[in-house]
């Protein structure tokens, strides 16, 4: 594994009034890693991820993403990352191609680069026939694959994926993870949250958040060993059982 650190977080904290959503989390993520960011609903995963993407100001602590400070250089970070929100957030009233062209343009790709990358992505996704389809009319699984493609259209150093496969069928999930692997093998760092424990097994390393804190962090194999568990599912349950928060 490449040892270059792409994301580094120290004591990162986010409080909303009295409520501490993220409580002094610290970890490092290396280049090309698929970093699984697990936790029950309400554990603070999305809040932590939003701080790393420059969408939310940390209350305390420090961190850097792609070499830029999360506190002060949020806008610079945004140049080097891709982000796929939990909620589908491309433009439903634009076509597949128009969405690609829009985001490529926003990231400063010129006309020729846009054309090349968008065509390559369409081909990779087998989406060529859907080029002029309105995004709103695509099935969910396709939307998610398209979101991922657009999040990586500018070849970012890190891609943040917030529950990218929620509600997606097993076949499409499989295809989605193939896309993730391919991006990682090209050197893109993947930071992904999920509730599917089979997906956790695919990650290079996994952290598990409970009540705003990171309670465990290691490769899936070592975590299973540490908690004397058969599967990641068991590891997760052992940790999450003690959670105070939840739905």
């Amino acid at each position, binding site marked *: 594994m490449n040892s270059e650190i792409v994301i580094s977080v120290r004591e990162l904290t986010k409080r909303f009034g009295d409520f501490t959503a993220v409580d002094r989390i610290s970890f490092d993520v290396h280049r090309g890693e698929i970093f699984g960011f697990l936790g029950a609903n309400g554990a603070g995963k999305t809040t932590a991820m939003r701080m790393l993407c420059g*969408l939310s100001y940390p209350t305390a602590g420090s961190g850097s993403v792609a070499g830029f400070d999360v506190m002060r250089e*949020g*806008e610079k970070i*945004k140049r080097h990352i891709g982000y796929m929100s939990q909620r589908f957030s491309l*433009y439903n*009233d*634009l076509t597949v191609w*128009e969405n690609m062209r*829009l985001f490529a343009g*926003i990231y400063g790709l010129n006309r020729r680069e846009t054309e090349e990358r968008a065509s390559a992505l369409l081909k990779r996704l087998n989406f060529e026939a859907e080029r002029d389809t309105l995004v709103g009319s695509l099935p969910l699984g396709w939307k998610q694959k398209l979101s991922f493609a657009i999040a990586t259209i500018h070849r970012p150093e890190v891609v943040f994926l917030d529950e990218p496969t929620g509600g997606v069928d097993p076949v499409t999930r499989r295809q989605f993870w193939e896309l993730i692997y391919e991006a990682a093998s090209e050197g893109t760092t993947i930071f992904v949250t999920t509730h599917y424990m089979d997906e956790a097994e695919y990650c290079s390393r996994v952290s598990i958040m409970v009540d705003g804190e990171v309670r465990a962090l290691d490769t899936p194999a070592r975590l299973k060993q540490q908690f004397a568990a058969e599967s990641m599912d068991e590891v997760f349950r052992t940790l999450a059982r003690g959670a105070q928060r939840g739905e």
Partner: protein
Amino acid sequence: MRTFLVLLQKEFLQIRRNSFLPKLIIAFPIMVMLIMPLIMTMDVRNVNVAIVDLDRSTTSRRIASHVEASEYLTLAQTTAEYPLALEALEQGDVDVIVQIPADFERDMAVSTPEHISITANAVNATKGGIGMQYVVQTIVRTLGEIGGERAPVKVSELITVENRYNPTLNYRHYMIPALMIILFILICGFLPALSIVGEKESGSIEQINVTPISRFTFTLAKLVPYWIIGLFVVTVAMLIARLVYGLAPVGSVWAIYLGAVLFILTISGFSLTIANFSDTMQQTMFVMFFFIMIFMLMSGLLTPVDSMPEWAQRFTLILPPRYYVEILRAVYLKGTTLSELWINYAALGGFAVVFNTLAAITYKKRS
């Protein structure tokens, strides 16, 4: 630059794809400009008059026929009993009662007759007041004619007249500028705000916020389409005013366009600021309605600023529509030039800068 262009392209595509926005943008100004001037009139017409004729003379019949012939008055009934007329007034069938005293004609010929009494229903103060003025004028004219024929007594001694209303004033010409402003407020004010909040509701703004795009670029790309649409609206409105109502500006068309540009900038910047503070369409609509009420009712669009209480007149100084409606009316009706109205243009320019800066500052990419 390319970033700005792709964003602009996106905004235009979204407007075009919307199932009702393009129709609204085209049909709304046409409809408002065609229909509203016909309806929004303060001219008082169809004033129902009852004549209590105790005189039964040529003079009293002549008054009645003049009332009947008036464009503004309708002779609802002629009776010999005041209580009957009063009952009709109470029931709303009659707006003004004219009582001509007995022996009016004879007395007029020889000395000072008893006064003609006029009773008006002033529940609708405007209609009552103006209706009464019309009646008075009609009677004065009738008596004047008779007086001219055999004049021993001066008419002015019979009735005192205070004519404060000019019935030849064409109210439409006063209203059309106001309607143009209402169109701007609705189209260039509401639509960009709803478009931003729509992105908040659909979540797509998050995907934008996570990109390095500057908030100025994003805000500008949101506004430019509505500026263009605003210029289209003012052109349509001016054409209709010209072709349908024969109202052409006495002054320069460019003075109107310059004002339009500044006013559109102001109102769209204002609406984006509100959108930045709202999370849902409902919130935006409500807050916008609140301000639009103030804009419409307090900035002299419908009622003259001069007749407002002193404190309210001072308050209108912070209302942008006030400045533009003054420009429109002055240029349209009086032919006032740009240099004479420079204070109004400067005020609008100031508002445009303030609101657009506010809109860009209050748009937060990060929470």
